[in-house]
């Protein structure tokens, strides 16, 4: 059984159908890059996987947890998949440490000392052990995004969804975030990332999904997809036409 099973997922915003029957099975430890033009539905797909958007039909399950619209099922699902956002979305009223502690304490009821120990460990893992007491607005964009990764990791998810996590960063800060993602991939974390970093996708990912008009248009190993695209749409997207 696959870790993440996406079956015939359809999603509309009003009359506009953005996902037109998506099928995608992801094995444990896979690193998947989703690429495509803006408006192709790639971010929406990611947001559907942890229930930030409701789906109109089809099914999504992560390690046996079904996506259903009630709070109990959503919580069970969200404990299995973490999400990192383009805009970081750190809680500005809490320190970096507080950000990583909060959901452990509130959702998992982890005792405070243990939650703090895990928070320190996770911040250390993203290279920010020294920034435990810093507030988000004292950190650079790259540091904020790494805290966001630590915050997601502290919940011990089975998979991480990354929604264009380097798109809001200055070019010189992209590298430090990608380095963290690369190390997670090396440790066997299942990653599903919407990205514009083609070089990173080529180097790190096990499969690349090209989305076009709300469908999986082409899918395959990165060397095949990038070197030998089959469809004119992908060729055009990669700038080969």
């Amino acid at each position: 059984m696959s870790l993440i099973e996406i079956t015939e997922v359809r999603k509309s915003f009003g009359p506009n159908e953005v996902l037109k029957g998506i099928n995608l099975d992801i094995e444990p430890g896979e690193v998947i890059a989703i690429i495509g033009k803006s408006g192709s539905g790639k971010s929406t797909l990611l947001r559907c996987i942890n229930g930030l958007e409701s789906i109109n039909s089809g099914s999504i399950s992560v390690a046996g947890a079904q996506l259903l619209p009630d709070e109990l099922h959503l919580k069970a699902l969200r404990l299995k998949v973490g999400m990192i956002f383009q805009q970081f979305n750190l809680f500005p009223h809490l320190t970096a440490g507080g950000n990583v502690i909060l959901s452990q304490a509130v959702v998992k009821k982890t005792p405070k000392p243990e939650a703090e120990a895990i928070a320190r460990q996770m911040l250390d893992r993203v290279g920010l052990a020294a920034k435990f007491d810093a507030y988000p607005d004292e950190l650079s964009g790259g540091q904020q995004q790494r805290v966001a990764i630590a915050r997601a990791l502290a919940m011990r998810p089975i998979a991480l969804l990354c929604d264009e996590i380097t798109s809001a960063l200055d070019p010189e800060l992209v590298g430090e975030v990608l380095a963290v993602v690369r190390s997670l991939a090396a440790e066997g974390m299942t990653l599903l990332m919407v990205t514009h970093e083609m070089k990173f996708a080529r180097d790190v990912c096990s499969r690349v999904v090209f989305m076009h008009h709300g469908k999986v248009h082409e899918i395959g190993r990165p060397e095949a997809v990038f070197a030998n695209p089959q469809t004119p749409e992908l060729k055009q997207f990669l700038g080969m036409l």
Partner: protein
Amino acid sequence: MTQFTLWDIFRNLLLATRWTILLSLVSFLGGGILGLILLFMRIGHNRAAQFFSKIYVEIFQGTPLLMQLFLAFFGLGLFGINVPAWLAAGVALIAWTAAFLVEIWRGCVESVASGQWEAAASLGMGYLQQMRYVILPQALKIAVAPTVGFSVQVIKGTALTSIIGFVELSKAGSVVTNATFQPFTVYGLVALLYFALCWPLSKSSQILERKLNVAHRNH
């Protein structure tokens, strides 16, 4: 004819100021509690409650406070219920204050970026947890300055209750004028007393706004 000294006038007005302060406090606290209830109805997931809160605000913001006072005072009287002026004044001002505080606070809650809700949700928090630990602490900070600022409106609003016979600062002013025939002196003092109540509040609202904004920038 009795002569009134300036101190006589001032002393009587000062005594009446107690009632202005008390009525303001009651209105503000009562309105705050009612406003909080209406706020949770408005931002909660229950459609009927949302609708009720919305209609409430439209009605109380869409009619003059004076009419609300009249309705509370005379309206209940029509049903044979004898309403004392202080009760009608208190009820009307609480209801009116609540309608404005709800909208101020709703604006504060909605000004917290939607990404905050999403981040909290993606970490597995339920609606109430998102509200309690992520949204409200941020909204509260934004709300302090405008809420203190609005308290000035409440104090000035209490002046209208003089029309239904509640003896607070303004009513005392007209009573004293009738006895002394010195309207300019009396109302001048009345205005001065209102200013003494309101100015520190609006000033502290400004200071709070600056201070909390700085805190938001640098922590």
